């Protein structure tokens, strides 16, 4: 029965990991789709979300409340970043915003180290989440299942937002033909700004969900940033559906690789990316062209 338990374990773990990648990758793609900005500070914002959440829980807030609140704070930070740094760069070549957000990443990372220090932090979870539950033949920690449900809730909320609300529909429209949306009398700038903020909120949410999984540490944003890029590149830049497929694929490959080769797991993921790019240079579902 051992191998069945292992299989269940791997499937659940890769769903959790893939789910985190999904939230990050979709956030990057929403920002890119509307603003033509690849946000290199996305990983740092993810770490920021986890740290805000850590502090809120440490101050006595319930984990679930913090899960709702911390991303909002990250969203506010995102709004400030957009107004202060990204807006002035609107007309410039993309290379400049890329370098700018790279600088921003170091500032946020540095600030995190400055305020929270270098040591690893642990988000205190509610009592019931610290137990294990049996899933078929395998026993599985409850908090991982809760996080899996949390990821599903985020994805459902995102689908509702993008598919059913006016803002979401405007976003999708503006990402393909901004001029047309503007001609319909919709303030495209405002849609673009909300897309940036939404991306930041998603990064914060992912950080808060991942906090209990991987612990909270100063450089937690670096690995996830690279993985999210891999997801975005494999899925196709700007393609939301592509990001979903790629996130689950990368999550699965990485979990499997961690199980078999441990140290060099990430190398396998890069190999996967190289392989996809050799056959589909624009990614699995990338329709548009890279700029």
């Amino acid at each position, binding site marked *: 029965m051992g191998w069945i338990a292992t299989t269940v374990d791997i499937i659940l773990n890769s769903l959790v990991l893939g789910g985190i990648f999904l939230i990050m990758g979709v956030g990057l793609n929403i920002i890119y789709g509307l603003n033509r900005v*690849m946000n290199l500070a996305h990983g740092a914002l993810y770490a920021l979300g986890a740290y805000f959440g850590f502090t809120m829980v440490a101050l006595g807030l319930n984990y679930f409340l913090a899960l709702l609140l911390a991303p909002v704070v990250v969203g506010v930070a995102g709004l400030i970043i957009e107004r202060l*740094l990204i807006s002035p760069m609107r007309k410039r070549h993309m*290379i400049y915003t890329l370098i700018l957000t790279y600088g921003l990443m170091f*500032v946020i990372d*540095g*600030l995190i180290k*400055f305020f929270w220090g270098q040591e690893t932090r642990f988000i205190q979870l509610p009592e019931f989440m610290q137990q294990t539950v049996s899933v078929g033949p395998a026993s599985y920690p409850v908090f991982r299942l809760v996080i899996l449900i949390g990821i599903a809730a985020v994805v459902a909320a995102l689908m509702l937002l993008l598919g059913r609300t006016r803002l979401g529909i405007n976003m999708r429209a503006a990402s393909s033909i901004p001029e047309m949306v503007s001609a319909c009398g919709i303030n495209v700038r405002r849609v673009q700004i909300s897309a940036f903020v939404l991306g930041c909120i998603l990064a914060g949410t992912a950080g808060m969900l991942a906090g209990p999984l991987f612990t909270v540490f100063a450089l937690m944003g670096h690995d996830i940033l690279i993985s999210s890029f891999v997801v975005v590149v494999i899925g196709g830049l700007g393609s939301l559906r592509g990001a979903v497929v790629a996130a689950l694929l990368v999550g699965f490959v990485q979990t499997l690789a961690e199980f078999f080769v441990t140290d060099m797991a*990430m190398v396998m993921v890069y190999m996967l990316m190289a392989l996809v*790019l050799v056959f589909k240079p624009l990614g699995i579902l990338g329709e548009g062209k890279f700029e």
Partner: protein
Amino acid sequence: MRALKDNPAGKLILLGVLVCLVILPFVLPNRFYVRLVNEIMIYALLAMSLDVLLGYTGLLSFMHNAYLGIGAYSTGLFLMHAWSGSVWLAMLAGVLFTLAVALPVGWVQVRTGGLAFALLTLAFGMMFYTVAWKWYPVTGGDDGLMGLPQPTLSLLGINLASSGNSTAMYLFTLGVVLVCFLFTWRVIHSPLGAVLEAIRENEERASFVGINVRRYKLVGWMLACGLAGVAGSLYILYRGYAGPGVMGAFEGAGVLMMVLLGGMGSLWGPLVGAAIFIFMKDFLSSLTQDWEIFVGVIVILLVLFLPRGVAGLPDLLRRAKAE
């Protein structure tokens, strides 16, 4: 930027700087500063090689230091395990190995566009960093390569001294960097350089006039990585050691900053940028631990207010005077 031939002022400045650099180790009593200038020259070469990619071909590499690292490790491994008799052979081995690694990576990268290219440099750079850090039996893992033999340096047939001698190492570095600079200058101001610039300006139009964009991007990439490999082999000779730290993301940002500080697309700007950056880092890191925040803030300010760096200043002044 005009060619060096019809730019007497530029020629004179280059000659003046060169004379100063040659005299420097003999008049400077403090060995620490001789070694600092040596490091500046190595990073100047790396920054210049990134400028070939960023400023001329229009491709961004976030972790160009990865190829410095590969050059350093492979030169070091050649000296340790193969033959420590000839420094030139070791450097050649290092550069060739760097090129051999860069070729498949570049081949994959140029198949995508500019933005994905930049993201891929980050991913591959992190991969090389992971390998250097985790492949303990070969790279020494966290400890890095240690116990390196110190080969005899020779320049133009003259045996200088062992690479442990700081003055000899300094002159050797100066010679190699100068040759690389002149070589790159020549290439950039040849028809090949014009093709690279055409790709930077408008990829689509370049392909319409019959330029194989992917192939020339790869040529630009290989040139940049080869030069970075040279810088790497100089680096390990100068330090006598290489650790995974040189390949980290933070170091990569530093190289990018050197190019930005100096101004991309000028070739000489990044050399100045490297000097400013390393002196500044030396100064700031003695003052504060949170050096990271300052690097980030300076990068942001540069992009916002001085996107063309030091090399853009003459133009800026000229325009201010004209008004």
